[in-house]
């Protein structure tokens, strides 16, 4: 893949650790770790985390930094044919666990905060279920939990696909195939309509730049390690095992109800890839701990880079710092908070749900 196709983010960062294809970055000025609880961001394996740092003024990461959060990012890299045997357990118990250790070690060995985006949210949830003592708080953004809930276009796309045969045939699943799958969901919009509406020569340069950056990001699709793809597509999308508590990773069953740490779950009201009911299912599963749910008006990508992206930044930063997803100005109408006491009895329920 050429350098032109590999988009880079806009916020300065420093690589602090690497293993195989994986890179662990720390964002922000200076090289010394700060004093706050660090946040480790785990993006999906499909597409690149560049989307979280897409353009000046449209950077989720820069927004968190500006709100006083110390941000680390796990970049999974670009798997190739040699990585076809990487499985879910490798990503979870090896790569993610090592990154959590690295970040934690830089901050005195204390539990850290974890934020997962989309598939990265699923990986983060599984990690939190298996390693509860290593985390302080967990944020899941546009994360599918019940893959059969709502109008799940991706689940439909793979419904009749023989995933085993596909992985056996391809080994590592090419990024181009992943892109083609996404295009197939809205072919006319993505292949033609979008370009009719794209900013022209006389458009605002900032808008034009954003369009081009987004375009570069969309087609910067890493290949998928075969065994990981096999398990995720088959066990999550086709068999929907995660929500049923039957997903097994490396011989360990993932029981999300074991998660006791505070969880903030944010989804987009107009998300066509992860429909809201798919994310909302998490609230029903977490029967212990502290669960906050927030709907943001936007799509799967729009909530990060759209005109209202600051709403998401405020929500996440406030919740990480204070445990409340909304600023203390009474504007939290869209936030539903369910607090369960440590003994497991409902301690209180405030706000209302507009989701």
């Amino acid at each position, binding site marked *: 893949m050429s350098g032109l196709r590999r988009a880079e983010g806009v916020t300065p960062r420093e690589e602090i650790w690497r293993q195989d294809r994986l890179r662990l970055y720390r964002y922000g000025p200076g090289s010394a770790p700060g004093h706050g609880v660090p946040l480790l961001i785990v993006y999906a394996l499909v597409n690149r985390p560049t989307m979280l740092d897409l353009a000046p003024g449209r950077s989720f990461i820069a927004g968190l930094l500006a709100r006083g959060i110390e941000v680390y990012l796990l970049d999974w890299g670009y798997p190739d*044919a*040699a*990585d*076809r*045997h*990487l499985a879910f357990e*490798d990503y979870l118990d*090896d790569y993610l666990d090592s990154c959590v250790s690295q970040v934690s070690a830089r901050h005195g060995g204390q539990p850290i905060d974890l934020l997962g985006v989309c598939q990265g949210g699923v990986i983060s949830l599984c990690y939190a279920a298996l390693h509860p003592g290593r985390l302080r708080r967990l944020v899941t953004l546009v994360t599918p939990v019940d893959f059969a809930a709502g109008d799940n276009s991706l689940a*439909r*796309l*793979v*419904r*009749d*696909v*023989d995933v085993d*045969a*596909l992985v*056996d*045939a*391809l*080994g590592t699943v090419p990024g181009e195939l992943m892109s083609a799958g996404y295009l*197939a969901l*809205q*072919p*006319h*919009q993505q292949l*033609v*309509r979008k370009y*009719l509406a794209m900013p022209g020569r006389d458009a605002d340069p900032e808008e034009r730049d954003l369009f081009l950056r987004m375009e570069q990001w969309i087609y910067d699709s890493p290949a998928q390690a075969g065994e990981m793809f096999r398990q995720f597509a088959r066990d999550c999308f086709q068999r929907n095992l995660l929500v049923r508590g039957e997903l097994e990773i490396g011989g360990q069953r993932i029981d999300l109800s074991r998660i006791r740490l505070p969880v903030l779950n944010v989804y987009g009201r107009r998300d066509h890839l992860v429909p809201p009911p798919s994310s909302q299912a998490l609230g029903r599963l977490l029967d212990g701990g502290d669960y906050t749910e927030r709907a943001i008006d936007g799509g799967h990508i729009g909530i990060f880079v759209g005109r209202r992206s600051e709403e998401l930044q405020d929500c996440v930063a406030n919740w990480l710092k204070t445990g409340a997803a909304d600023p203390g100005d009474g504007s939290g109408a869209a936030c539903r908070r369910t607090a369960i006491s440590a003994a497991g009895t409902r301690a209180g329920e405030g706000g209302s749900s507009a989701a």
Partner: protein
Amino acid sequence: MLLPRPLDWLFDGAELGAAYAEAVARLAAAAPEAGAGQILQRAARELGRSGRPILRLWAQLWSLEEPSVGPAGRALGPALRALDQLSFWPQALLDQAILRPALGPLREVAEGGQQLWLAWRELERARRNWLGQQARVQARAQSLLVERLRGRHQREEPVADLRALSVLWLDASEAAHAQLSRDDGFLLAQGQLVNALSAWRVELREAGDGLLMRLGLPSRRELDAAHERIHRQGRELRQLRRRLDQLENSIGTPVT
């Protein structure tokens, strides 16, 4: 495409072309006062031809399942299909030639070729089935477009220009796709196409691997086996390191 079946491919392409031509013809007939028809007529005149008769003829030629088309159009589809059966390499003859029992020293090579042929045949079937689903989407898109143009005409909202017309067409296509891509038939056709491609790819790889092995070069199968071994050993090494760390932590001194 390893085996040419010219009429097959021509016919598939024409089915999609028909959907488009039919849409334009209907559009021109259904909403001339709304602006779209006039625009098309003008565009056609600029090309030095009268657009509507050509478009109508085109639609009649290829709209094979439309009851209102003329006898030539109705006959053409079956005729082409029949002709295809008699084309250069009829499938039955190819089956007979390729799928006969493999004998002799090249038996394995022949069997590999047979598997490749069967996978290709299945891929062709799946591809045609999938194209049929795409044609359904296009046909539905035409109906939606005409409905919407008629609605605009009734509301006296003319289509401003070709760009606006193309946006209407794209919106209708996307809506038709959103409706029909939920169908069991569509999903099955899509899945079967991917599955057939997977099987075809496996057979191609097997053939390539056989050739590489004969040339003394590493095959995909051998590389996969090597990668798996490296991966397994890497995972074991990391598990051992973790256990070592735990031991060190438990006794408080480094284990050498």
